[in-house]
């Protein structure tokens, strides 16, 4: 049988390696927020005939939009982000661009979020995340209420969840300053979905550990966990693969609106599967064997056999 549990500290190290850069980026640069959270204007504009980005930038600067962010979309349109503008300003802007660049302007998508609603979105997003975390924690405690230490199982599942969330946040923080990717309400949606999925996946593995413990297949807790992981491994892999297939389809072909939303899910589902096997279950052992000291590198692991709890 494959030994999944023996290398647990290597998994922890691997997790640290993929998470730490993102966390550093989060602390140093934070996340780039889109208009949903800080108000402003987002517009997707098509020019016929097409114009050069540098010229467009120059023109926007001369019109007083020096801080405009301009990106090109995969369709060759421009995504322009400005401060909040009024109907008149929008009209003046399109008129001026049409004359100055002698090109026809088509506004494919136009969105303005006012500052009062943006601050509210931030507040509601925070509430949603907190309530979701609390709800999931409560649910896990409930789902494992028949186990000797429901709180312990819950905590391990939540640590795995935090692991997944941190990874996604970190990746988007890096994408923010590397590629100008901004986070919006859909990003929050994606994050909460990832949270749900991460727990979904962890519960399947935990469920099997619970079943095997009740069956009493072994007195050694580590062995029970390892056995359970082996039993559920094909399932975990196949499930993730199917979800990843559909997400990859959406990510590669699905269009700009949900491009980064599906990326959130893609990263989240992958790490969600990884963390339920390599973090949540392994942490159960660490906790059970009371290896926390070794975890932070202070004392050797106790040689005593586990108590199968």
């Amino acid at each position: 049988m494959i030994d999944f549990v023996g290398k647990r500290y290597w998994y922890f190290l691997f997790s640290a390696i993929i998470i730490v850069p993102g966390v550093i980026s989060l602390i140093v640069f934070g996340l780039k927020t889109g208009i949903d959270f800080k108000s402003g204007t987002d517009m997707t504009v098509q020019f016929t005939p097409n114009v050069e980005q540098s010229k467009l930038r120059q023109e926007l600067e001369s019109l007083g939009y020096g801080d405009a962010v301009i990106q090109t979309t995969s369709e060759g349109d421009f995504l322009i982000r400005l401060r909040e503008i009024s109907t008149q300003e929008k009209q003046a802007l399109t008129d001026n661009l049409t004359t100055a660049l002698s090109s026809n302007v088509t506004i494919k998508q136009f969105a303005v979020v006012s500052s009062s609603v943006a601050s509210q979105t931030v507040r509601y997003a925070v509430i949603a995340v907190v309530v979701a975390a609390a709800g999931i924690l409560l649910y896990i405690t409930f789902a494992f209420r028949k186990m000797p230490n429901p709180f312990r199982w819950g905590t391990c599942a939540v640590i795995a969840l935090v692991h997944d969330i941190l990874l996604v946040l970190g990746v988007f923080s890096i994408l923010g300053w590397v590629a100008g990717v901004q986070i919006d309400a859909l990003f929050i949606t994606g994050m909460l979905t990832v949270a749900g999925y991460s727990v979904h996946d962890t519960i399947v593995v935990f469920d099997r550990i619970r079943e095997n413990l009740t069956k009493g297949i072994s007195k050694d807790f580590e062995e029970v966990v390892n056995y359970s992981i082996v039993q559920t491994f094909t399932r975990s892999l196949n499930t993730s693969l199917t979800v990843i297939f559909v997400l990859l389809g959406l990510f590669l072909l699905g269009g700009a609106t949900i491009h980064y939303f599906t990326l959130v899910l893609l990263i989240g589902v992958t790490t969600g599967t990884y963390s339920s096997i390599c973090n949540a279950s392994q942490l159960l052992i660490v906790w059970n064997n009371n290896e926390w000291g070794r975890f932070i590198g202070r004392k050797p692991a106790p040689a005593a056999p586990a108590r199968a709890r």
Partner: protein
Amino acid sequence: MARRNGLVFVVILALFAFAVWTIVPINGTRFGHKGMRLGLDLVGGVYLVYQANFSENTSTADMSAAMDREVSIIQKRIDTFGVTEPIIQKLGDDRILIQLPGFTDIDAAKQLVEQTGFLEFRDVELNTSGGVVYLKDYLSANVTDFFDDNETAPRLFVNETGQGSDYGKFVAFMNKVNGVLTFTDTNGNPVDNATLQKYGDMAAWIPARGDDGTPLTGDLLTDAQAKLGGNLGTTPEVDITWNSKGSVIFDELAARLYNPTDTYSLDHALGIFLDNNLLSAPQVRAQAFHGSGVISGSFTVASAQSLANLLKSGSLPVQLKSTPLFQQTVSATLGTDSLTRSLRAGIIGIAIVMLFMIAYYRLLGGVATAALFVYGAISLTIFKLIPITLTLPGIAGFIISVGMAVDANILIFERMKEEMRAGRTLEASVAEGFRRAWPSIRDSNVSTFITCIILYWFGNTFGAFMVKGFALTLFIGVAVSMFSAIMVTRTFLIALIRTQFKQGVLGSIK
């Protein structure tokens, strides 16, 4: 057992047939629902969220009543656009959400909605000796009270000598606050002195009241029609019809303001104001009008028509803050493009999932694929019949739920394999596989349900239709997937075992 399974099998097939009949063809009409309801990110359209400008001490009951009226008035106005399925909703206590799928002229929509549409009639204020009161009179150093102290309503100053588009534009309100005369704009902010000085020659307009003190406003109208009038019959105007009370007041005013001469004088003018801007100030040249009247002004045919529509829909009980909290418009081409792209991506993704399942689980995978078709048809039927507005993230949510639906099957199949390895018979393994996989399927999906509920709340609170769409489709998708994994896959599988395919099933489990 055999008969029961046969019965369930038939029921599932019937359900599937019903679902397919409901959703095919994709644009067909069933039970009064034509096609799928698509969000404006997929068909193009306008999305607006407005905040109403209530004063601080408005009671919740008053707010709620005013908002309900506000919604129905905006509904009436939007109806003149001929949008197929507009959504106009109250959002929270004091917000209104407007969705116009298929209608992409955001500026026209905003203009139509933002107008309060408050029509009122005013005459000029006269001092004790019968002279017209002007703004400059109020700006004199020693004036501390209204010239006509019977009238305590705010005075309105407009640019009545302005040319072209400047004509009749609002200048200032004057009100007495704590005994001090104060000039403000429509938002209650003070107006600077230079502006006031500039418009010193403008008259002070006060509400035109009937003998019982009731002001003449658009609330007393029963109808408004655009027509061509004037001496040549070529000038666009709006014909108005008063209700009985309005008719009485109008005639009382006519008797009072009647100008027997041919010369224009302000003290014989009846000012017609829409949202504090003067439309026109005609002379009253008849002593009675018997319930009808004409609003003239510098109208085009289109603007006369839109004024008539505005007056018919009535005035908004509470003003909307003039910048929407949230506004979005998606062009029809971008919408269609998004729809085709996401559908194509979804179909490819789902096809790969099906191929993978068949390749890995062979006949079992085939059963799962068949179940997936039933699952898809039922989900889409639910989307169509509720109906659920499908958005781009909503389609993504549905497609992701397909991946999750397969998870239940995978759990069950893996479990069956284990049971077979443990030496059970095929029938026993199938039964055990379902029985034992169920708690995992149930427990694991609850966390997704929790997230969906929270997301729905999050999206619904401030009208983020994309978030809401995703939460709804994912929730329904996962719920149906649990049903399909347990009922559909099991029934198909048991039916299969009873046929000559038993060996095939056996082969694909081992």
